[in-house]
């Protein structure tokens, strides 16, 4: 019997028990859809982390204030004021593995251009900030050390701010905007940077000299963050050690004291994030794999039922000339058809749920062809594996006994 006829027989047999076939497929459908969607989520987040890596610069180091536990209650990280401009200067002067340092003092507020206003955040930094963040200017010029010294009221705008304050495509350069009622002259526009790995819009920012922000907006001498660049990615750890010892000296900490700051490297953050997402992918895929196995067992079960139900048919086919292999193929193809049909529906369902997740939860997803091909192969293999034993049982029946079966 040729394959086409076998397919036809299998198809008819399944059509005869549509609901049963569907319920049997359900395990496979869910399994495959889960694999595709889970892998898509895992791959998507990994991909976005990786693109962050190249956009942020993998040698970036972030220094945050942290609570000193010497006395009493711990305070939240950002509410502690320990980092000052002296720290920045000390790092710049002493740390050999650091190529650039910039403080960052930020404040949220309302940016106004004429009648338009937009809530955003102003970041007070030094000129090296743009290098450290690997952030380029699209237009205009950056501010200089002179501007910092003079607390000049100049600023650079992120793309989101530009679209909201200059919606008609006007050139913002040279214009005066107000932030918390303080006038700033726009001297440059930044390139779009997109979302951060935490889903934050990085382009929703105004960048100005830190002196201006500290004096005129925050009225504070402390910084929320200090950014630094290690001379290379491999120097990140050495730079971290240097910064730690410099800051401990700066803050006059005794050897028994805990650090009142935290030093984080980008590389460390990225590897932490990717290992979490890798683990997540493995875990989710394992769960999905288990549901595929359960689906396979469902197929095996239903194939045994089908063989038993059709014992007389098997006997008849054998008595008019079907060989064992013909019967084996007939049932095997039926099992594979269930699993592959389930697989196709599962793939479609998986891809669409990945799309829906991106649309509604705005999680990045990436449906990889390899996951489609792989789950397809796994489905076919599931059909063969779990369909084989029932099919073999059918092929070994004795024609007369099968015909007598009731």
């Amino acid at each position, binding site marked *: 019997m040729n394959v086409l*006829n076998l397919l036809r027989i299998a198809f008819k047999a399944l059509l005869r028990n549509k609901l049963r076939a569907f319920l049997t497929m359900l395990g496979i459908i869910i399994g495959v859809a889960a694999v595709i969607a889970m892998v898509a989520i895992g791959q998507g987040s990994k991909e976005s982390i990786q693109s962050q890596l190249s956009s942020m610069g993998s040698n970036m180091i972030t220094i945050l204030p942290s609570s000193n536990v010497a006395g009493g209650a711990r305070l939240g990280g950002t509410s502690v004021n320990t980092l000052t401009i002296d720290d920045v200067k000390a790092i710049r002067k002493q740390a050999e593995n650091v190529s650039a340092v910039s403080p960052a003092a930020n404040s949220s507020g309302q940016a106004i251009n004429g009648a338009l206003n937009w809530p955003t955040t102003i970041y007070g930094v030094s000129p090296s900030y743009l290098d450290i963040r690997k952030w380029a200017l699209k237009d205009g010029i950056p501010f200089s050390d002179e501007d910092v010294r003079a607390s000049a009221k100049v600023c650079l705008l992120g793309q989101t701010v530009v679209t909201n304050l200059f919606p008609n495509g006007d050139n913002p350069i040279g214009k005066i905007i107000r932030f918390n009622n303080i006038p700033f002259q726009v001297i440059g526009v930044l390139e779009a940077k997109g979302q951060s790995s935490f889903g934050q819009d990085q382009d929703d920012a105004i960048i100005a000299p830190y002196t201006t922000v500290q004096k005129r907006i925050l009225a504070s001498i402390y910084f929320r963050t200090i950014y630094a660049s290690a001379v290379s990615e491999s120097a990140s750890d050495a730079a971290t050690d240097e910064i730690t010892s410099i800051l401990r000296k700066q803050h006059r900490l005794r050897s028994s004291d805990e650090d009142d700051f935290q030093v984080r490297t980008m590389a460390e953050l990225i590897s932490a994030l990717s290992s979490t997402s890798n683990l997540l992918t493995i875990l989710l895929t394992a769960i999905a794999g288990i549901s595929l196995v359960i689906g396979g067992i469902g197929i095996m079960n239903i194939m045994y039922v089908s063989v038993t139900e059709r014992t007389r048919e098997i006997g008849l086919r054998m*008595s008019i000339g079907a060989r064992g292999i013909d019967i084996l193929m007939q049932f095997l193809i039926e099992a594979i058809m269930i699993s592959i049909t389930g697989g196709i529906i599962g793939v479609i369902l998986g891809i669409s749920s990945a799309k829906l997740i991106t649309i509604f939860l705005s999680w990045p997803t990436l449906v990889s062809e390899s996951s489609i091909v792989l789950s397809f192969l796994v489905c076919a293999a599931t059909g063969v594996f779990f369909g084989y034993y029932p099919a073999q049982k059918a092929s070994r029946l004795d024609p*007369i006994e099968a*015909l007598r079966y009731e």
Partner: protein
Amino acid sequence: MDKKILEIQQIKREFRMGTEIVRALKGVSFDVFAGEFVTIMGSSGSGKTTLLNILGCLDKPTEGNYLLDGVNIGQLSRNELARLRNRKIGFVFQAYNLLPRTSALENVELPLFYNMEISHEDRRKKAIHALEAVKLAERMDHTPSQLSGGQQQRVAIARALVNEPVMILADEATGNLDTRTSYEIMALMQELNREQGKTIVFVTHEPDIAAFSSRTVMLRDGKVVKDTKNENVRSAKEALAALPVSDDY
């Protein structure tokens, strides 16, 4: 008519039912020559179906030899037996054994599916031709549940004929038919026997059916009790013509 197509030598068939042994055949021997039309008669339970199943290579004897065309069946593999059943033997079952929910045409086509030498178009043609031979061409789209018992039996006969076997084995193929239809079937059998030289072994327990054959083997209790040549074979065609024309009573 001198070539032996079937040779059975001291065939025994026992069924083990727990501790009890049922002896369905207790040593049966006879030969069938190519082109013979043999009827096997005997009361219910005498072993006719058991014997026919062995002749049809569906079952193997517990003891004794069975040679089909000079080949000892006991030495063939399952696949070789399947091929034999497909190409050489047309079997009509006592219980028809049609596939349910499958049209008459597809039921008749079934043996051809297992014959790779036959193309798709040939399969259709042959199946339609076989259904025409049993006068069921206009019912070929009907499923078994939409056919009468006699019609189902004729579909089963068509299925046995479709692969052009050299030998037809029929188990009570007229058991459910009225006189006219069974005579028609017998006329068909005689035609296949005389014009195409097919060997026919026909199980029945009706003596008037046996009269159409050239030889009758009588079984009783798993043994051959009589094996007689029929000198004046009745022509089924003539018998059919002699039947009263009108059925309206």
